[in-house]
């Protein structure tokens, strides 16, 4: 078994969202080129630079033979002489390991003398000569000769027939090393020497300070935290791996707060797993966050990254972190009664560590992230202001709860409520299946077929003003009630139950919409009942329907209360189907093409292994009943399996379910598949790769291609809060070859 991870990396299942960057670096490293390329990957601490470089190294080591990868991490070198010996040993060892495919050699503790012997035995006198010259320069204490000899090693290796690609990690850790006392840092000369020696490289560091003094052209690439979707996906997967209970909306909120920085995300989840803390509410997240920052690994990491400098450094950091436009050095001197030299030293150390940057004109600007700022605020409160750790923690939690609450409000604000209002405006006497509403009791709505109801003819809908006795009055808004952000917004729709526009037929629908990512509970139902009673008193209409809609469904107690009171209920996923059914026409183009609806079937699947087979069996029986032949039925079943797998893979919602609706028409079968809220693959997703090269087949991305090949129509529809896949298979007419 080959040793994949020559330099330690995190497990593959915990690595997320950097495939594009890795691909770009691999092209850079092994693609054709005429001139050497210099690159610098700059990014805040813990954004994953080391992981990225090491993964590139592993892929270059195992995936090709043309370019020799050499990974070097600038750590622990105190002088140019130390660096020279260390770098020379690393470059030669890695070349030997690569050319003999012996990864274990990289980890072997070989001295330069031992290496020289190995090179001589392998008839590599040219490389042995490098070690010989190193020993001579070392004896003569000629640091410049030592340095230049080491830097020339990649060129010597390249002369043996394979180009070298250097991966230089933590470059800015060597900023302080110079070739001679009082001279400039050696890094500028080092990078220039690499390029003039025809060696391409990708270096990584926290600040661009390391590049000062280099005159060679180089491309700077910025590595930021993971994007929102990748960060959420990572955090959810880690929670699943480590058995941490979570709520996806709260995790989304957490990812924003953690700015997508992988190390923060991992440490949060590890800490939650260790302390068995769920992340299902904003408060749980904030408590965990405060604990990680003040007593946990995140705090320890940030503390270790801070330069030594005691309270002065902390003061400077606090001032910068809390001043959006930066602070001048002069202001720092005055504010903290520090000498010019002290400020300069503190700023320089902080700049090297990436916490602050030069804002120009002597202004020092905060360059850290929000988590580091929270840490600095707490440390300042405790160490400078003398507050207790508990007080600092309480202050932090209060701030973050308020911020999280605002973010949560912004994320969910109004989407579903507006959708329900718009939907009710579209009620115009349509007949729809009862199954869209649970607890459908009132008899006035159930005229005609038993499994259908007639919707009213709605004239208009609106959100009611604050009601007398409404607890939300004091809480700043008509849509907030005693339950705070977890209560319902009200939407009222007014109209007539039939086309007879008289008082007897006047109807009012009162909808309560719970937007927040927690299920509706019995308290919410009670609250809704009280407020809807007030509305009914005010409007005094002949008929009234009360309807609750919840993004995350209903608790058992809430369902029982609704049963008792005859309140109807619909969850957000069913709402999408209801909207399409109500809209008809443009929103339901397949209905006419499949020859008018004859029957409809719905099933809801849990996201469990092999549950797609239940959907396939249903599809198969419907297909057989409709007259599709064996091949047609197998094709439909295979497409349904693919759609379900796709929906499972891409749903990002806790306790996820996949809803399928089969609409049987005279001319064909339409199948609607919707997961709980998030995206399916795009039809033109980059996951569907280009055609395979001759003699080699691609490995993934077949799903959409299969569905498109097996069904007559496959398309994605964007819904509020998610995506839905629609597939249609037509029955062939007489004279067509078959129904397959």
């Amino acid at each position: 078994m080959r040793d994949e991870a020559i330099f330690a990396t995190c497990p593959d299942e915990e690595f997320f969202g950097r495939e594009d960057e890795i691909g770009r670096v691999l092209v850079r490293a092994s693609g054709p080129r005429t001139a050497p390329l210099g690159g610098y990957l700059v990014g805040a601490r813990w954004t994953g630079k080391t992981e990225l470089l090491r993964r590139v190294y592993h892929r270059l080591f195992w995936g090709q033979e043309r370019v020799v990868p050499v990974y070097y991490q600038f750590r622990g070198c105190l002088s140019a002489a130390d660096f020279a010996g260390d770098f020379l040993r690393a470059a030669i060892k890695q070349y030997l390991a690569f050319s003999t495919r012996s990864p274990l050699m990289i980890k072997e503790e070989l001295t330069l003398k031992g290496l020289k012997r190995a090179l001589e035995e392998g008839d590599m006198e040219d490389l042995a000569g490098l070690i010989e010259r190193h020993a001579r320069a070392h004896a003569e204490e000629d640091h410049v000769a030592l340095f230049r000899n080491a830097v020339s090693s990649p060129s010597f290796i390249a002369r043996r027939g394979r180009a070298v690609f250097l991966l230089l990690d933590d470059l800015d850790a060597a900023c302080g090393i110079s070739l001679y006392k009082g001279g400039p840092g050696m890094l500028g000369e080092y990078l220039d020497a690499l390029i003039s020696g025809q060696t391409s490289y990708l270096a990584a560091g926290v600040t661009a300070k390391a590049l000062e003094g280099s005159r060679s052209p180089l491309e700077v690439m910025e590595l930021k935290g993971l994007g929102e979707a990748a960060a959420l996906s990572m955090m959810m997967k880690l929670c699943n791996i480590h058995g941490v209970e979570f709520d996806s909306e709260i995790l989304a909120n957490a990812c924003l707060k953690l700015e997508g920085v992988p190390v923060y995300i991992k440490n949060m989840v590890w800490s939650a797993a260790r302390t068995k803390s769920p992340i299902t509410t904003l408060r749980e997240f904030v408590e965990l966050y405060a604990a990680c920052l003040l007593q946990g690994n995140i705090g320890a990491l940030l503390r270790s990254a801070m330069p030594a400098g005691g309270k002065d450094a902390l003061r400077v950091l606090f001032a910068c972190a809390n001043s959006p436009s930066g602070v001048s050095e002069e202001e720092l001197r005055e504010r903290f009664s520090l000498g010019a030299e002290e400020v300069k030293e503190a700023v320089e150390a902080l700049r090297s560590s990436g916490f602050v940057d030069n804002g120009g004109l002597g202004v020092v600007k905060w360059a850290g992230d929000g988590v580091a700022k929270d840490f600095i605020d707490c440390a300042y409160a405790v160490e400078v202001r003398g507050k207790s750790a508990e007080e600092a923690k309480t202050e932090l939690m209060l701030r973050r709860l308020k911020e999280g609450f605002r973010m949560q409000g912004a994320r969910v604000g109004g989407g579903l409520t507006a959708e329900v209002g718009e939907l009710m405006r579209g009620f115009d006497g349509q007949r729809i299946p009862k199954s869209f509403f649970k607890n459908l009791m009132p008899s006035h709505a159930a005229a005609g077929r038993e499994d259908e109801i007639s919707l009213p003819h709605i004239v208009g809908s609106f959100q009611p003003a604050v009601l007398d006795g409404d607890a939300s009055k004091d809480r700043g808004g008509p849509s907030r009630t005693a339950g705070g952000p977890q209560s319902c917004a009200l939407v009222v729709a007014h109209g007539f139950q039939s086309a007879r526009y008289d008082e007897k037929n006047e109807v009012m629908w009162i909808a309560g919409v719970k937007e927040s990512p927690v299920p509706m509970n019995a308290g919410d139902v009670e609250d809704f009942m009280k407020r809807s009673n007030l509305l009914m008193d005010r409007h005094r209409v002949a008929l009234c329907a009360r309807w609750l809609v919840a993004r995350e469904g209903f608790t058992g107690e809430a369902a029982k209360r609704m049963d008792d009171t005859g309140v109807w209920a619909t969850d957000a996923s069913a709402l999408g189907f209801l909207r399409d059914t109500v809209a008809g026409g443009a929103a339901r183009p397949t209905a006419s093409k499949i020859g008018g609806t004859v029957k409809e079937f719905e099933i809801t699947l849990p996201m469990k292994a092999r549950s797609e087979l239940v959907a396939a069996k249903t599809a198969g029986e419907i297909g057989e009943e409709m007259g599709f032949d064996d091949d047609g039925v197998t094709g439909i079943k295979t497409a349904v399996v693919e759609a379900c797998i796709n929906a499972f893979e891409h749903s990002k919602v806790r306790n996820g379910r996949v809803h399928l609706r089969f609409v049987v028409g005279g001319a064909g079968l339409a199948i609607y598949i919707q997961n709980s809220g998030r995206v399916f693959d795009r039809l033109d997703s980059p996951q569907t790769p280009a055609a395979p090269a001759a003699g080699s087949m691609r490995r993934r991305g077949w799903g959409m291609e299969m569905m498109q090949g097996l069904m007559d129509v496959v398309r994605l529809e964007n819904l509020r809060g998610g995506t839905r896949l629609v597939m249609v298979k037509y029955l062939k007419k007489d004279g067509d070859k078959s129904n397959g």
Partner: protein
Amino acid sequence: MAKRDRDFREMKDCAILYADQYMNDVEGERLEELAAVFLEKGVKKLIIDFSRTELINSIGISILVGIMDKLREKEGVLFFSGLKKANHDMFNMLGLTRFVPVCKTEEDALAMMGRGATAGGLQAKPRNEGGA
């Protein structure tokens, strides 16, 4: 003397692997492991028989492609047999049949192998005989 098992049938220099009713990740991995075992033993002629298989999903396809790649690396020969017409059409659509010959039955595949499919048989011109 041929050895028989419900999952595979091993002959002197050839093995037939029987895919289950639902070719998904689990089943694909089982076949992949079996294929690896035979390759390790030096058996480089493999037939995957799908006569029991009704449904094949995309993960199963990906794993089949992996098996094809491994066979190619080892200069082995791979045949598919017993595909239902719908699945055969799907393999055609996805381009798999350009690389792996498909026979009606495992006996046909054995006969075709005996007629001289050689190392590198993955690139042999497929004989599309249709589904079962």
